[in-house]
């Protein structure tokens, strides 16, 4: 289980070496999310329409190690974009990956860009 978690480490925008073409813009529900497969990784991708932003993070919730974060509700906590895990409502910042309502380890976040109707997620490997 730990090994699964180790697979995901955050990627900063200036460290992106691969822009993975994940899906079309309309594949992701507005103000909601879906899951993208990249190699052996599961990435949660959200279209935060209200903030005019896209976010990506690992699909794995570090609480019980389940691949479910893409199915969680998104929103904000004092302005910080966040996702709530559907399992036990653990919330994570979509900006930094930090656990906002507990002391779970942070989740990995990834840069996202949209070009010509396609959504790309940035990876370093």
């Amino acid at each position: 289980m730990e090994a699964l978690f180790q697979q995901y480490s955050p990627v900063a925008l200036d460290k992106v070496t691969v822009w993975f073409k994940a899906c079309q813009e309309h594949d992701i529900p507005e103000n909601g999310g879906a899951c993208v497969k990249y190699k052996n990784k599961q990435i949660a991708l959200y279209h935060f329409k209200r903030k005019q932003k896209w976010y990506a993070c690992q699909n794995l919730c570090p609480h019980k190690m389940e691949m479910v974060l893409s199915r969680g509700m998104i929103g904000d906590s004092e302005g910080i974009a966040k996702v709530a895990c559907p399992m036990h409502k653990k919330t994570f910042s979509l900006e930094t990956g930090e656990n906002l309502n507990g002391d779970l380890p942070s989740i990995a976040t990834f840069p996202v860009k949209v070009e010509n109707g396609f959504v790309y997620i940035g990876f370093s490997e």
Partner: protein
Amino acid sequence: MKTVIVVGNGMVGYKFCEKFVSKSSSDEYKLIVFGEEPRPAYDRVHLSEYFENQDANALELAPASWYKENNIELITGQRVTDIKKENKEIHTASGKSYTYDYLILATGSVPFVPPISGVEKEGVFVYRTIEDLEEMMAYASQIKAIKPNGKAAILGGGLLGLEAGKAVLDMGLEAHVVEFAPKLMPRQLDTRSSNVLQLKLEDMGIQVHLSKATNKILGDKVIEGMEFGEDDRLDVDMLIISAGIRPRDELGKTCGLEMGTRGGIIVDNRMRTSAKDIFAIGEVALYNQMIYGLVAPGYEMADVAVNQILGNQEVIMPEDMDMSTKLKLMGVDVASFGVPYMPAEKGLSIIFENKTKYLYKRINVSHDGKTLLGGILVGDAADYNILHQMYLNGIALPDNAEELIVGARGEGGSAFGSAMDLPDTAQICSCESVSKGNICSSLLNGKSNSLKEVINCTKATTGCGGCKPMVVELVNETLKSMGKEVKDVICEHFEYTRQELYGIIKVKGITSYDEALDKCGHGDGCEVCKPALASIFATIYNHTANKEDVIQDSNDRFLANIQRNGSYSVVPRIPGGEITPDKLIVLGDVAKQYGLYTKITGGQRIDLFGAELNDLPNIWKKLIDAGFESGHAYGKSLRTVKSCVGSTWCRYGMDESVSFAIALEERYKGIRSPHKLKGGVSGCIRECAEARGKDFGVIAVEGGWNLYVCGNGGATPKHAQLLAEQIDNETVIKYLDRFLMYYIRTAAPLMRTAAWLEKLEGGMEQLKKIVIEDSLNIAEELETDMQGLVEKYECEWKQAVENEEIGRRFKHFVNTDERDDNLVFVPMREQKMPEPWTN
């Protein structure tokens, strides 16, 4: 820069540090703290909680990082062995030495172990530190392994001893409390209250042995029993000694400080010892010829010592220390304040005792009946805070002083007013010395705006927490007096209660979540307000969960219950629990085809577990083709109406419970509510459908149905209460329409009917007036709204399988048709289950 060394990192030593850093500047003083235990100071008062959660961090007063942030050097696991007071120097066990300008001795105490023969035997423990607890737990599990009915005794029936009794119960051993005195908690209780407490403890499985002088611990190497006198013994496998404390005063003794004849370092009212730069605080200090074994006086001593060092000479200890205590012993309130008991020439008592409910209340009043001298509360200490304040502040007693403990006769309400009537000087939080004035003024001068901020700002309630109800009352009343409303708002995005929001959405005709945020909320929403709004839209417009799927709770979004490994369960509706053999075969076929685990639910239907997200639409297509509908097991909505077989088959049945249950389930299916709703219909008073454990329950009686509402099972079971008697089917439906709709409109999010009724002003009587007598003149509107929802019902799974757009939601990956390879199932009893969680 001056150096202050604190020896001892217990609760009082920590409090000294906390007060010191808040009052001094760190470039003038350097603080070094020595702790003998391996961890930073923790909350010893709540030590027995360690048995429940075994989380040492939860007891921590402040993490190690706190000391660092405040420039305090914390040295744990290190004992100070010697003081050279001429050189202002201390020495540690590892041979190091440090010099000080001020030395604080906060070494606390050790458990007193009476000199009983055999006390050194294996299996005899003391109760003081987390390490003591860990050793006890390890030993107890050894005993249990070889002797499932093992016994443990606690020597000492004082406060700490009874706490240890709870610990023993939690460890799963038979518990015995042995006390030398003829009563429990001899310092705090009189004989009658001790008797009441003893009854309660015995009811919970703790045996109490009073007036027992233990003269021998029996056994070879290992304890086997205790001997009290001739032919009087108790066989036990373990003994925990909790017979009082002795100050840890060796350092004072060896360096020549003035000592009490029976131990303790003598201090004056400035907490100064006989050496002017050495202070002693907490349980090591002998003040007024007394050792104070409670946390509140210890904290006060810490405060005095801090002020003295920082030059505030006028802050000194009061002449009399308040030894009042309130605690919850195994869930039983026990409190005593002032003079708990005394001879008749000193004052008179008013006593209320009810052994059937394990209640005892006593107050002591002066001969002229004007002043409260003290008292004892066992079983119900709700009035402790206000009584304690009356005692501390010398507030004049009302004419009928007995009403203070038995409640006012006649019109409801208590004899004393609210906490707001206390003087500003009244000490509300004795652990942190916070007065009513501190609390109210922090709100009035704008420093704080909420309970949370008041607590942060004043530290009230952060000690024992006993004052919390009063602090809450003071905060709410003060905010009210400032014209600020105190209410249960939904979350940071909507500053309304659910009921208010319901009204706004309806009046403004708002139909989408974003529109609601823009028109009456702010920010971007969250996992609390999204489902709450979805539920409101469902009630007003009958939107199914498919309408705006991203504001639904995850279960509603995927129309299934997410299970432990992220797979889903499928629960078709089986109204009233009635199902044909053909439909049973369909369920079996589907479960077989998709490899699902099957189980009968508590609500008389069949749950199919372990379905992958991608398979849900196909599974449901098959079920819908066979005539099934969504069971809404995933929603905050009607689950099932459970029934017994009723008069069609049962020889006792008074009416057709199955037919009626089906009718009710068909009527209310799909309707969203603040929380889940469950119903039941029983054909006679034998109540096989357990209808009184439901939000609504109907029971057939001679001449019609009895209708019960607001019951539930779950964590806090409640029996439903009678709303109407001997009514016919139409009237049941009429009343249920009104009741359910009123609940749906007015309850807070995730509030079941029982909790809602508790909050409803006027309770059941009021509900009867609204539902039966239509006192609010809204019955017709409620019925019309309900009828509208009933007529507009649509199966949301039917919508989902017929609409390709909705169907796309049920894919694990958006960019491939592959499945979630992370799902792992393991076999179990010819079926399957998710791989167990390892964390």
